[in-house]
């Protein structure tokens, strides 16, 4: 047998890859479990501003989202580039906010109605005018607990 083997050239055995699928499956399950599919599809541009002093929102079921920004590129031909409000899946006007607030409140149980946080997801480039209008509309219907959605950063800059 070893008579014919050349000395010094002992070939390395191939690395056993039998456990590779297991490892990949493990990763796969991890991502499958942690994945959250987006509930609403965004119709507005939404690059959030950065801030350092952010806090996490605790209860996801008690958060309602209001998106503000200019329509995404695909919709600009139809809706223009002026900033719009998006509630759930549709564009909305300021005067539809009270109705939206009522609907969100109806979805929650009696005890939780006053604990809803209104998360404003506003594009960084939006001007304050529309944001203030939304805030005033929310204030009128007693929706006072706001969250300005931001990204976390370590340091803010001047420009």
């Amino acid at each position: 047998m070893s008579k014919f083997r050349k000395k010094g050239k002992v070939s390395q055995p191939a690395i056993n890859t039998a456990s590779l699928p297991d490892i990949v499956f493990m990763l796969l399950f991890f991502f499958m479990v942690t994945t959250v599919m987006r509930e609403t599809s965004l119709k507005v541009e939404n690059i959030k501003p950065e801030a350092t002093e952010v806090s996490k929102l605790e209860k996801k079921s008690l958060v309602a989202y209001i998106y503000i920004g200019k329509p995404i590129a695909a919709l600009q031909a139809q809706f223009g580039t002026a900033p719009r409000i998006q509630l759930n899946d549709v564009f909305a006007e300021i005067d539809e906010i009270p109705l939206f607030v009522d609907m969100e409140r109806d979805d929650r149980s009696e005890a939780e109605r006053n604990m809803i946080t209104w998360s404003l997801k506003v594009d960084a480039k939006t001007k304050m005018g529309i944001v203030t209008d939304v805030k005033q509309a929310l204030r009128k219907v007693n929706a006072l607990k706001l969250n300005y959605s931001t990204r976390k950063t370590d340091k803010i800059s001047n420009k």
Partner: protein
Amino acid sequence: MGKRDISEINAGSMADIAFLLLIFFLVTTTMDTDKGLIRRLPPPIDNVEPPDKVNQRNIFEILVNANDQLLVEGEYIQVTELRAKAKEFIRSSPSYPKGIDENNSGYLNMPAFKMTEIPILGNMYVSKQIISLQNDNGTSYEMYIKVQNELVAAYNELRNEFAQDKFGKSYVELVKQAGSSDLAKDKMKAVKKVFPQRISEAEPKRVGGDK
């Protein structure tokens, strides 16, 4: 022949399939935990009584114009300088909490104090500071968030320093422990009362451009 073994199914491609799925989930996944600055709006106007007159020295005035420029207490500054300025104002006296009196006579352009009873800490002088923020309709949201962020940061830093000094723990640590310990919760509330967050937002001006 005749008795043929059932050959094993080749599992070599399983890894490929799993990879494919893995990559799909990697791409679609959004680890999007919602984070942000939490604020409370004042209640609607018709059910609050008109506010008391506030002495000018107690107000820290911030104006933001449509070009995202800051005017703080009549002075044009950069947003990165805001935090230090706000901190100085909220503390009201550099030596706080020692060596001060009700009228803050050493610093007459800074807010006065009010003797307040605070749980755990007893009677303390609490600054009468109010931060007034006014922005223009043309101010960008990014700038607005920056200003808000710096103000919250100023309060947080002061609270941290104060808590560290009094309890040997920073305010952030107290907040973290508040869920599990009542003592930490009480301490947290006390610190909050010493430096209450008073940010008032004036109705915006419609000067430079709309929306």
